[in-house]
């Protein structure tokens, strides 16, 4: 019986450890929601910041993030989708394919600040874009490229081989087969992957730190060569760089909440859609 008791104790320790994670996550979200909610009004969301962000709203940061993320998706989505199509539909085993896969894995592991360094070196300095939306978007797009490739590949692989064979056997060319008989069933999954990418791009700070983000710029950008504020960087600035960081607590929490909401909405949508499509296309 002794053995049973000690087993039981271990069970409970494991259970407690697992639920501790849940508790911490819940605590973080709860803390930010409770303290940020009072700020969540039109003046805050649609307003411009004043007095270096101590007052007013965060519209430029929201808009900046939207621009950056849209730009990143615009670049990464086609690149990622085409890469995935090549890898699943065309690639044969061999050195070239192995190199591509190695590169994707490497890219997925590159620290975000290194993306920042690289983006700065390439886009800001070498191409002379300066700190700008275009530099930031490209940098972010490289960062989310592996996410998009991997989930697009998954979506393509989920389409049964028999559909490809059926089409080829009718004398369709390979591209006709892909275009008419594979992509239509893989697209939902591919877009789901891109939503995950959006969530990641929206929340990243380090890559935009060196390529685009403005400390305080209370107006909307007029071209892709403008600097912009961005939500994650704005939160960082308010929390650590602001001269009266303690006094702007509500602003910090408000910003954190908006950022968290945007990112979580994208992520949860992606998760929901993924399970929905998995059920819908059970071949």
């Amino acid at each position, binding site marked *: 019986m002794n053995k049973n008791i000690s087993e039981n104790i271990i069970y409970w320790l494991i259970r407690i450890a697992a639920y501790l*994670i849940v508790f*911490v996550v819940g605590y*973080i979200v709860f803390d930010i929601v409770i303290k940020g909610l009072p700020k969540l009004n039109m003046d805050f969301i649609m307003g411009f910041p004043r007095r270096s962000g101590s007052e007013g709203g965060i519209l430029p940061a929201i808009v900046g993030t939207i621009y950056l993320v849209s730009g990143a998706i615009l670049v990464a989505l086609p690149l990622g989708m085409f890469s995935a199509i*090549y890898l699943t539909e065309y690639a044969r085993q061999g050195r070239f394919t192995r190199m591509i896969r190695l590169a994707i894995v490497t890219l997925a592991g590159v620290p975000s600040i*290194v993306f920042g360094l690289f983006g700065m070196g390439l886009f800001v300095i070498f191409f002379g874009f300066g700190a700008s939306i275009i530099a930031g978007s490209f940098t972010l797009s490289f960062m989310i490229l592996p996410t998009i490739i991997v989930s697009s590949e998954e979506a393509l692989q989920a389409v049964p081989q028999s559909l490809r064979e059926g089409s080829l056997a009718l004398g369709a060319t390979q*591209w006709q087969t892909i275009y008419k008989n594979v992509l239509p069933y893989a697209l939902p999954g591919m877009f789901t992957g891109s939503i995950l990418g959006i969530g990641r791009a929206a929340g990243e700070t380090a890559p935009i730190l060196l390529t685009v983000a403005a400390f305080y710029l209370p107006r909307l950008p007029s071209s892709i060569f403008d600097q912009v504020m961005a939500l*994650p960087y704005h939160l960082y600035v308010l929390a650590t760089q602001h001269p009266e960081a303690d006094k702007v607590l509500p602003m910090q929490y408000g910003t954190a909440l908006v*950022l968290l909401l945007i990112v979580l909405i*994208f992520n949860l949508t992606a998760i929901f859609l993924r399970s929905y499509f998995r059920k819908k296309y059970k071949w």
Partner: protein
Amino acid sequence: MKDNLKEIIIKKMLVAAASTSIFIVLLIFLFLGKEALPFITEPGLSELFDSRWIPVSFQKEIFGIIPLITGSVLVTAIAAVFLIPFGVIGAIYISEIATFFEKELLKPFIEILAGIPSVVIGFFGLMILNSMVKDIFDLNTGLTALTGGILLALMAIPTVISISEDAITSVPWSYKEASLALGASKLQTIWRVTVPAALPGIIAAIMLGMGRVIGETMVVLMVTGNAAKISWNPFDSVRTMTATIAAEMGEVAFGSIHYHALFCVGIVLMLVTFGLNMIAQKVLKKYQMR
């Protein structure tokens, strides 16, 4: 024949798209190398191994990256202390012990955690964990390596859990059945059969998680206090390689020694994460071969 030409063009385009990943990786190495290289001639590579990092000084700037490396190592080691047990136990619980209902409850939390931006985690650390660490350990400041390590562990937990969980669930049911049939308890089976069988996958998961920890920037920038000194004390302030780049690159003069030094730090960072990643992939591949 018109069709044929179209097919060939499309394929070429797809090849080009797929090659961009290779191209980007090469460009990253190239640019880091190009911007770091001048440091070798002026002031010389040996300067990097100094034990002090004093980028702004009236006498002599010193760019020894040793304190930055030890800072990263200390924070990473602390993170590992939390990450490994919680990550592995979490994965075991979700895949082997939790009921269906519990799984449906636990998984979304892990996915939410994976989605929380690092700056928000850092913000939480600054607001809550900071004062908790300060009070519990009776310190002058809560901005310590310990605070950073805990938060980093939290950030990397989803990576470790999801990959370990895959490894654990793919252990054939027949192994477990055999053990249970021999009269082993469920816990013994998990410990003696399931976990050892899944070990390569779990190790790879931990390595990938550690890769994330080393590369993470915002959290450490916000909560470790950023003192560039060699220390192995978890209650000290430290400064990591990532935080150094993030904090200093914005103010540095283009082309200065400081600028090149920061790119040297970037290369070290890149090589370390690249190495970890490669080893993890090797382990995973071996494992999937079986």
